């Protein structure tokens, strides 16, 4: 019931916004998202899956007695964490677009709510078709958010975003359908239960089949993540999207890709994963370094942060494919942390853009002089993003890297990557410092530079107002809390991760034999 | 006249009968399609769609006769409805477009592009 509400309420609010007058739409959206957030908190408090392998928020609702599709919902702790991330970011996204959206406001917030419903649906679906429908449906609202409210190049960006990710997920669909078809061949009836399909795929597919299924799924999810060679839609989409769009895109939509990897790729085709992990690891690392270096020479600050997402998500994928508890924990944490810190960076850039109407670091800079509060937040979130210990980014990066490091033939701990992977990926830490500090050095510090035709915003003060601070403070609190008490999250998701890794028996057994801890 | 209102008894249609009507229908449809694809005059293109409607009408009625089920003919009534509605709207649009560009050439209207 709770799960259904979490999906249905945003839709309802969206409809309500669509039919109510323009002037109340943003208040409605704020009230709705806040309400849903409280609801998700309530759901989280009762959630039975924390720290265990149990599932919660179960809804079993077949569409009909004969239909193979169902409306089965439920969440393990990883999905729940991501649902919480979604519901947490949405009110902030609404609040962040309070004044930024001036035209067609009603549609904007309605689409935002639809987007929330789709994203929550992705995380909560236990039925493959439901998952896929929601997964694809996230594209539609996002497409409109970019195409209507984006900046100059929005038409191209939105189209590219849509077509690119859609093509990828069509390939994933082909993979899914193949698994479904093979299942039907085996058992004589179709089923789209994710659990059943995964259980079947682990044993029922030949090595070649599993390899192709892996490639198909990777095609879908890697584009979404985005992994190195298929990342080029992201900078464009991020740059052109409105602030809330960028935040949601970075905060949640990219996580759909990593969540897909976690939910489907790892449990479905372990044998193929073991075979292909080195390649995926290499792609992640190339992405980390390549995107990081590209960030370093950007002059558009939003593009910089967008490329940094490519770089950061490389760590996330690396941790995921480390296939050991540290890596997987780190990866899931990374999903949350990246959502918080990069989301906040996009908010900050949006706030700057609202005042100066430029994102070019050449024409605006030294803002610490006139916008001290903004600058404080900027530096704070940049540090969170750089991975300063004590803030959230560090923990996840550290765990991903140590996970990747510990694996490998010579390592003491299971997993398929190894020290060299981690060593090269760790260069990304230095590069991250290079480009993010370059950005801070240009736009926050230095002599004050403002665009020639700049004049004060008619509604907003020079520095942040209370509303904008209210957007950033929860994110900052999130960063600090996850930075100093990461066990909150790691304890919570430990069970699910153990469950996922139990499918990699040889690796874990090897670990058990090799573990030598002098306790 | 009485035949129109009262029952006429007929033997069952043979497959050859039905096939003839259907082939006629197919050919008419194809010719209409061909016209639609080759003609550039918007009005003639619409005429061609009407031709395709005619083909559909024949097929509907022929099948209805085959099954002795009159919903085929009922459907034709709906086709007529749609055709009438389409004629009203589409022709209004055509006139509008014609006013705008002063031509009936469909090739000048490429807004569907991209």
């Amino acid at each position, binding site marked *: 019931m709770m799960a259904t509400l979490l999906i249905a309420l945003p839709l309802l609010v969206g409809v309500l916004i669509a039919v109510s007058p323009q002037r109340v739409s943003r208040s409605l959206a704020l009230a709705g998202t806040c309400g849903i957030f409280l609801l998700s908190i309530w759901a989280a408090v009762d959630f039975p899956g924390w*720290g265990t392998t149990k599932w919660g928020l179960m809804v079993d609702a077949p569409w009909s007695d004969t239909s193979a599709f169902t409306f089965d919902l439920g969440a393990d702790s990883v999905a729940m964490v991501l649902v919480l991330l979604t519901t947490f970011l949405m009110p902030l996204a609404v609040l962040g677009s309070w004044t930024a959206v001036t035209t067609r406001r009603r549609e904007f917030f309605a689409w935002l709510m639809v987007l929330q419903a789709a994203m929550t649906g992705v995380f909560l679906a236990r039925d493959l078709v439901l998952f896929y429908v929601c997964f694809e449906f996230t594209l539609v609202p996002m497409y409109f958010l970019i195409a209507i409210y984006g900046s100059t190049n929005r038409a191209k960006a939105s189209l590219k975003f849509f077509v690119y990710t859609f093509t990828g997920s069509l390939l994933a669909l082909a993979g899914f359908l193949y698994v479904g078809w093979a299942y039907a061949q085996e058992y004589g009836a179709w089923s789209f239960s994710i659990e059943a399909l995964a259980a079947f795929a682990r044993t029922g597919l030949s090595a070649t089949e599993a390899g192709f299924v892996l490639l198909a799924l990777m095609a879908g999810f890697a584009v979404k993540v985005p992994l190195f060679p298929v990342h*080029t839609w992201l900078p464009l989409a991020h740059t052109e999207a409105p602030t809330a769009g960028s935040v949601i895109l970075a905060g949640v939509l990219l996580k759909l890709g990593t969540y897909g990897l976690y939910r489907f790729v790892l449990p479905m085709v372990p044998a193929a994963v073991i075979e292909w992990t080195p390649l995926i690891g290499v792609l992640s690392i190339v992405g980390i370094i390549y995107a990081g270096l590209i960030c370093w020479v950007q002059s558009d600050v939003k593009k910089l942060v967008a490329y940094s997402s490519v770089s950061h998500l490389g760590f996330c994928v690396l941790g995921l494919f480390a296939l050991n508890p540290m890596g997987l924990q780190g990866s899931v944490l990374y999903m949350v942390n990246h959502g918080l810190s990069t989301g906040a960076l996009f908010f900050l850039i949006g706030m700057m853009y609202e005042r100066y109407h430029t994102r070019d670091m050449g024409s605006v800079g030294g803002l610490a002089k006139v916008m001290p509060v903004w600058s404080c937040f900027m530096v704070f979130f940049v540090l969170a993003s750089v991975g300063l*210990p004590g803030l959230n980014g560090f923990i996840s990066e550290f765990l991903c*890297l140590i996970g990747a490091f510990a694996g490998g033939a010579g390592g003491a701990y299971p997993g398929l990557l190894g020290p060299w992977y981690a060593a090269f990926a760790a260069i990304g*830490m230095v590069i991250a410092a290079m480009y993010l500090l370059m950005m801070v050095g240009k736009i926050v510090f230095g002599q004050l530079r403002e665009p020639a035709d700049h004049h004060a915003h008619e509604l907003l003060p020079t520095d942040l107002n209370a509303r904008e601070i209210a957007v950033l403070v929860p994110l900052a609190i999130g960063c600090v809390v996850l930075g100093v*008490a990461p066990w909150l999250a*790691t304890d919570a998701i430990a069970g699910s991760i153990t469950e996922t890794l139990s499918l990699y028996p040889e690796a874990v057994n090897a670990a*058990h034999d090799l573990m*030598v801890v*002098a306790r | 006249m009485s035949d129109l209102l009262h029952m006429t008894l007929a033997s069952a249609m043979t497959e050859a009968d039905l096939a003839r009507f259907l082939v006629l229908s197919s050919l008419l449809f194809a010719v209409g399609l061909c016209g639609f694809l080759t003609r550039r005059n918007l009005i003639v293109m619409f005429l061609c769609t009407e031709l395709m409607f005619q083909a559909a009408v024949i097929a509907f009625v022929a099948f209805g006769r085959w099954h002795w089920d009159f919903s085929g003919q009922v459907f034709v009534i709906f086709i007529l409805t749609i055709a009438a509605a389409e004629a009203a709207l589409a022709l209004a649009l055509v006139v509008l477009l014609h006013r705008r560009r002063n031509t009936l050439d469909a090739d000048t209207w490429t807004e569907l592009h991209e």
Partner: protein
Amino acid sequence: MSLLSMLSSSVLTAAPVPVADVHQAFDMGWAGLILWLPLLSLIACGCCAMMRCTSKLPAWITVGSLAGSFVTAMFLYLNYEPPGDVVNIVRWIDLSWVGGGFEANISFYIDSLSLLWILFVTGLGTLIAFYASEYMETDLGSGYCRFFAGVSVFLFAMSALVLADNLVLLYLGWEGVGFASYWLIGYYYTKPEAVAAAKKAFIVNRIGDLGLALAVYLCWTSFGTVQYDELVTVIESGDYARMTDDWSVAAIPWLLMLAAFGKSAQLPLYVWLPDAMEGPTPVSALIHAATMVTAGIYLLARMYPVFLLDGDHTALHVVAWVGGLTALLAATIGMAQYDIKRIMAYSTVSQLGYMFMGLGVLTTYGAAYHVFTHAFFKAALFLTCGAVMHGFAGQLDLRKLSGLRHMKGWKITSYAMLIGCLCLAGFPFTSGYFSKDAILAEAFVTHGPGFQWLGFMALFTAGLTAYYTFRVWFRVCAGPVSYEAGDDHHGDDHGHDDGHFHPHAPRFAMNSVMAIIAIGALVAAVPYFMDSGVKGGWIADMVNDSTASEGIPAVRAAADHAADHAHGSLFGYDPHVAMYWVSGGVGFIGIAIAAWLHLFRREDAVSLRRALLSRSATAWLPRAMERKWYVDEIYHALIRAPLWVGSHVLHGIDRILVDMVLVDGTAKLPRLLGRWVQPLTNGTVHASATAMAGGVALLVIVVLLILHLGVFA
């Protein structure tokens, strides 16, 4: 487990399994105050900034809390019993799974080594914060808050670094101090040089951090733990050997070295430290001289057992040579600089080189002692430089200042600086004399590749040190009175209203701190004579209880290592004895040359330089020294420029090859194909209709052929 019950378990529940030697000090939670007080002060400073406080309140808060930290550290010291305590403070990273776990909590490992460090860190921190309360007064307001917040962050991070019981928390402190350094170097954020220097410091340190991170990973994979106490146990047990490759354990020292060389400004990563002088001077004194830069030495001392695992001590030999070379290089650069703060910076690099040399030649005790004395005398030097800078509107050029000791109000400054200089120059019976000798002598004692030569090189460097140190003092404090103002006119109370510049002598806070620290620098010689069972006095005592005890000569001898490390000799004498004379002599020579060139006949210095420059055979020498051996330029050309160009190339590849050709090209492929077949995609109604109808027709035919006629079956 529900969320609520999880929240209630926030207090550390599962204590690590106690290791036999180490006490579990559960009743010492108050030790956490050392961390929490600076944190509170940070928050308070933030609140002050928010309330637009324009008084000195942030300074008093900071000084108060740092003093609190110091007192807590004192209590810790007084309660300390060897060999050490683990104090759990807060649960942090704590993973567990079937068959294993990863644990790195915010816990303290209190042994003598960490106590030694935390005592001088918090003590000097308090004093320098007090000094800064006056020094920074021209920036009262948000800048003042920002400064003291930065100092608080630094003290927090440094305490975490020093007290950490595991490498991850140490890493937190390690990066934390780097960040604090970034914050404070970039304090004058409108100055492009300051911003660039801050960035440089952070990034260069990040390279070191990379090494530390990898070392942490390696420790974890090799030894299965990142906690010191367990680490030591594992190393002693030798169990690790069967689960790791040889290379992994062997690689740890090298990675740690990278980390230490980054943080402690050694070759090849020293370049950030001189630039870091863009920060306010108290920062230079606290972070870039006394405390933070010694973190590298602390790290190596802490991880000393890992270095000793390799029987050949290859890693340590490299440490020694890098330290020695850095010391020499920095000293030669320092000789030729005119900015007194830069000179001090290079001297810091040079002295840190000595400390590494000490670690390398197996005298952790000497290194620790030098850290300790250096903290005082270098702080004194920087603080006096700061006083000069403060009083003369940012003037730092030693050619434009003279005779300070004859001016009213500058006595304490001058003599504090003299004490600092004497210690730095290794003048007999000052603290620096004893600590430096402890290192130099050991270079002759220990056997290693060319350590004899290393020793002579270090001696030569000591002479250079004496020279450039006194060059500063003779120029600035001695000689006839003359001065020019700098160009930094912050605050107009000493402005040019009458067309004449009034220097602005330090007042109570600065004077008192300079005096205390100068006295401290002198007194720092005393621990050497505090006999406490081990030769080397109190410092040796403080190192003896720790992981670094292998590096105490006396301990080594006692442990019958004497056979392995047969005493070398210096001019036929026992180096320990000979060094008292030799190093004193070298110091005197350096001071004498400085006195000749910079006190009595200053014109000789100018003509000497001119003479060197006029001959093409020698002209490169002063030029290269003044331009810092072109190291920055070389780095720029070898690393940054190629990287910059490479990044642009990558960006181009990304935009053109990956995006335009591969992605957009693929997207256009179907359309191109379509165009090739027939103009179906020109967007007209006809084209779409043709495509649609043709597609449907084909589909119908294909389906029929397959299903009904079995054509393709």
